[in-house]
C-alpha cells in the first residue's frame, strides 16, 4: 500500500471497468504508464493524475493513485495550483489534442513557460473522439469529418513546435504502439525537473483509424521515423541508409548511397540551449522528412513551484513568521478610552 513495499504494475490498476473502445490506443498508453510508475521509487499515494475532458481524460479513473478528472482544457491550471501547494506530489496530466491545444491552449503554454514541475502526456489522435468525430487542432488540412464535410480549412498545430515555442524545458514524442519506446520516453519525462511535455501519437480506431499507420506499420516504420538519441547521428531508413544533416539553416535528407555517411549527419543533442534546431526537427514530417520521435529538448531551468515556495521561505526568514496581531495593528492607530478620550 505505501512506499516502503515494492510496487508492481497491479498496484496501479483500479477496479473500475475501462470504458475506451476496444482497440483504442489509450489502452497501450495506460499499460505503459502503469508499468513505469512502479519503477520510479515513489510511494503510490504521492502520485496524482489530473486530466481535462475527452477520451484521454478518463485516464485517472483507471489509475489507482489520487486522481482528478477536471473540466475541458483546464488540467494544467488545476495541476499548477496543486503542485505549487504541494511540491511533494508527483503530478501527471493526461490530456488530448483538443483538450490541450484547443480549449486549453492558454493553460498549456503558460504551464510550459512557467516550468511547473508536472508531466503532461498529450494523447494526439488528431480527432475529437468523445464528441464523436469532429476535426481537431491537429487534424490535417482538408480533413473530412462530420463537422467538416467539405474538408477542414484549418491549418493544424504541430504540438512539439507549440511546446518549444512556449519555452518548454522537456519536449518528447512517442507512439502508443511502440511500447518500449513509450516507456523509455515516460521514464525520461519522470526524471525531468520542470514541465515535461510528451506528445503520444494515439490511434482512435473509431473516428480516425490508421491516422499514424504511415509511421507504425512494420514495412514503413523504419523509413518513416527517425529516432532522436542524444550523442548519435540522425540516421534512419530500412538499411540505416539515410540521415539528416544541417545545411546552412536548413535540414536535409542525405542518402548514404550518394557518398554520404553517418559522419555527415547532424548529431542529436537534446540539451542544446538554443531551441532553434529542436524547432526545425519538430517540423519534420511527411512528405520530405521522416517523423522524429524521442526527446527533442531537455534543458534545466528553475521550476515554478520552487520559485513560489522560495519567496515564502525567504520572506519568512527575513521577517520571521508573520505575526497576525502586528499585521492587524499596523498603520495609524488610535485608542478610544473608556472615558471617551482619544490617544
Amino acid at each position: 500500500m505505501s512506499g516502503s513495499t515494492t510496487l508492481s504494475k497491479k498496484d496501479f490498476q483500479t477496479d473500475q471497468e475501462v470504458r475506451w473502445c476496444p482497440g483504442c490506443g489509450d489502452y497501450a498508453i495506460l499499460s505503459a504508464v502503469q508499468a513505469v510508475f512502479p519503477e520510479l521509487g515513489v510511494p503510490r499515494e504521492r502520485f496524482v493524475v489530473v486530466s481535462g475532458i475527452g477520451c484521454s481524460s478518463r485516464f485517472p479513473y483507471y489509475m489507482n493513485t489520487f486522481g482528478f478528472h477536471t473540466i475541458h482544457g483546464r488540467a494544467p491550471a488545476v495541476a499548477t495550483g496543486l503542485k505549487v501547494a504541494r511540491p511533494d506530489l508527483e503530478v501527471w496530466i493526461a490530456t488530448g489534442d483538443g483538450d490541450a491545444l484547443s480549449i486549453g491552449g492558454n493553460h498549456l503554454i503558460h504551464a510550459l513557460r512557467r516550468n511547473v514541475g508536472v508531466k503532461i502526456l498529450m494523447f494526439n489522435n488528431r480527432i475529437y473522439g468523445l464528441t464523436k468525430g469532429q476535426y481537431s487542432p491537429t487534424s490535417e488540412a482538408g480533413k473530412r469529418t462530420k463537422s467538416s464535410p467539405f474538408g477542414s480549412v484549418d491549418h493544424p498545430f504541430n504540438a512539439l513546435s507549440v511546446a518549444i515555442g512556449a519555452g518548454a524545458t522537456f519536449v518528447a514524442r512517442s507512439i502508443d504502439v511502440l511500447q518500449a519506446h513509450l516507456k523509455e520516453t515516460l521514464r525520461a519525462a519522470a526524471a525531468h525537473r520542470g514541465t515535461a511535455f510528451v506528445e503520444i501519437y494515439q490511434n482512435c480506431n473509431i473516428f480516425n483509424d490508421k491516422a499514424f499507420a504511415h509511421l507504425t506499420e512494420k514495412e514503413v516504420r523504419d523509413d518513416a521515423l527517425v529516432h532522436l538519441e542524444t550523442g548519435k547521428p540522425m540516421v534512419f531508413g530500412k538499411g540505416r541508409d539515410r540521415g539528416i544533416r544541417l545545411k546552412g539553416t536548413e535540414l536535409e535528407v542525405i542518402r548514404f548511397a550518394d557518398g554520404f555517411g553517418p559522419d555527415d549527419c547532424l548529431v542529436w543533442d537534446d540539451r542544446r540551449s538554443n531551441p532553434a534546431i529542436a524547432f526545425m526537427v519538430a517540423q519534420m514530417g511527411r512528405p520530405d522528412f521522416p517523423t522524429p520521435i524521442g526527446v527533442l529538448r531537455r534543458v534545466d531551468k528553475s521550476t515554478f513551484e520552487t520559485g513560489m515556495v522560495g519567496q515564502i521561505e525567504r520572506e519568512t526568514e527575513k521577517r520571521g513568521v508573520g505575526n497576525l496581531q502586528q499585521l492587524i495593528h499596523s498603520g495609524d492607530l488610535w485608542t478610544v478610552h473608556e472615558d471617551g478620550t482619544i490617544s
Partner: protein
Amino acid sequence: MKLPIVDSEQGSSRAVDRERLDDVVIRFAGDSGDGMQVTGSQFTSTSALIGNDLATFPDFPAEIRAPAGTLPGVSAFQVRIADYDIHTPGDAPDVLVAMNPAALKVNLGDLRPNGILIVNTDEFVERNLKKAGYERSPLEDGSLDAYRLFQVPLATLTRRALEDSGLDAKAVERCKNFFALGMAYWLFSRPIEPTLRFLAKKFGARPEIADANARAMKAGWNFCDITEAFQTRYEVMPAKLAPGVYRNVTGSTALALGLVAASRRSGLPLFQGAYPITPASDLLHELAQLKSFGVTTFQAEDEIAAICAAIGASFGGALAVTSTSGPGLALKSEALNLAVMVELPLVVVDIQRGGPSTGLPTKTEQADLLFALYGRNNESPLPVLAAASPADCFDLAIEACRLAVRYMTPVILLSDGYLANGSEPWRLPELDRLPDFPVEFRTSPEGFAPFLRDPETLARPWALPGTAGLEHRIGGLEKQDGSGNVSYDPANHEHMVRLRAEKIARIAREIPPLEVDGEPAGELLVLGWGSTAGAITGAVNLARRQGLPVSRAHLRHLNPFPANLGEVLARFERVLVPEMNLGQLAFLLQGRFLKPVISFPKVQGKPFFRNEVLEKIQAVLGGSR
C-alpha cells in the same frame, strides 16, 4: 446642525471665528494626475487620528490617464467626518475643492447650496474651459453665486512657495494638491504632523520631494491663516466610538486581513489565485505582500486558470481563494461548478462593479446577486455572503472560509467597488475572540470512501493526496454517493442533486437569526444587503427621529437566508428593499416567501444617498396615512 462656539485659538496669527460642526462632507476633485486620492486619504487618516467617525468614497475614472483637463479624466475623493456614529460618506458635499474647470463641472451639481467652493483659478484659462465645455468662465458669469466661492491660484502660490526648492517646474506643479490639503487642514482645524510623517516615510529615498510637499502644505495652511479670505475655522470634535483600538481600513485591506486570519484559525496555508481585474486587484496586491504569513498568491494567465489553480490547491489541502469582479466571475462559472461537484472548499470573492460586460469598471453596483446564486449550469447550490461595510469584510472573509471548510463547498463572498475602496474606522478585534476552526483531514483508511458524509453537515471527508491508503479519484462526472464511483444511475443522480442542495440548506441552522433594529413588528421594515447598510441605517435613524414607524434589518447571508427571515417579513405590513440593481433581492424574497415587497432600485454606479432612502421611507409611510 451647527453649534457656534467660542474657543481660544491655538497657533493662529489672527482672530477668526470658530464654528463647531457635528458633521461635514468634503470632496477633493481634480484631474486624475492631480493627486486627489492622496489628498483625500491624508485628510481621512488625520481625521481618524483625532477621533472623528468617518466614511470615504473615492471615485476615479476607468482610464489610467484620460486626457488632462477633460471631463472623463476627473478623479474625486469624498470624505465625511463627524462627531457621532455615521454610516455613509454623505450625500451632498459641504465643501468642494475643484482643481480645474472639468472637476468643477462634474462635481458642482452635488455641492449643497451655500457650500464652500474652493477653485484653483490657475486652471481656469480658455483652453481648459473649452475642454470642460464652458463657453464662459463660471468664475465670472455669476453662475456660482449660490456658493461661498474662494478663488485661489493654487499653482502660482505653490510655485512661489517652492521657488528655491531646486525642483523642476513639473515636480513643483505636482505639489499643488498638498497646498490644497494645507488649506483644508487650516479650515477644519486639523494638525499637519501626521501628513508630515507620511511624507517623510513615503519619500524617504527622495527627501527633496517630501520637503517640497511639506512646504506646499504649510504654505496652504499659512495662506489661509494670513489672508483675510477665510473668516471662519471649523471644528469637528471626536466621535463617541466604543472603547478600543482603531485604525482606518478599506474593504480590500479588511478582506485580505480576514483571509489571513482565517488561514491562521483553520491552520491551513492560504492560496489565492487571481487575474488582474478592477476593482479586485487590490486584494491580490495586499495578499502578495504577505508571503511571510505563508500566503501563496498566483497571478494566473486568466480568470479560469485562477479559479482552477485554487481548486487544485484545495485538493492539495490549502485554504483556497480566488478573487475577481463580475466579468471574471462569468468566466469562472464552469470551474465553480466543478468545485460544487467535487465538493472541495473554495472561497470566491466577487467585488461587484457596474455592468453588464465591461460596464463601469471603477463604479459600484450590486447586480451580481442572482448571478452568484444562479449563474451556473444546472442545480448548483452554494453559500453566498455579502459584506455590509468595509470593516465587515474582515469578519465575513473569516465566515466564508469557515463555511467552506466545514461544509466542503465553494462559497461566494460578495463585496463591491464602494466597499473595496471606501474606508471607515475599524475597532480592531481581539484575536482570541475570532472563530476558531482547525481543520482535520481524513487520515485513516479504515472504512474510507471519498463521498461518505458527516451526518450533521453532510460534508464529505477532505482526503489529501500523499495520504497512504486514501487513493481515490474525483471529477466532474456524477458519482455514486459514498463510493464516489462514476454513476449514471437516474435515482442516484436525483439523490445527489437533492443532497448537494440539502447540504447548503443546512447551513441555515448555524447562521445567526436576522436581527431587527427598531420595533420587531410594525408598518415598515427596510431590508437591505451588502454595501447599502450605511445609507439605510442613516436614513432609518433619521426617519425614526422624525417619528416615523420604521425598522431595519440587514442580510449578510444571501444563501441560505437566515432561518427566521420569512417570519420577520411576515411581522411587517410593508417591506422596502433598496438595492443597487433592478430589484434582485426583492425578486428572491417574493419568490421565496410570496410576500409583496417594495423594490427601491438605484443603478447609477453610485451608492445610495441617505436622503434618497429617507425620502422613499417618507413617501411609503406618507402614502399610508
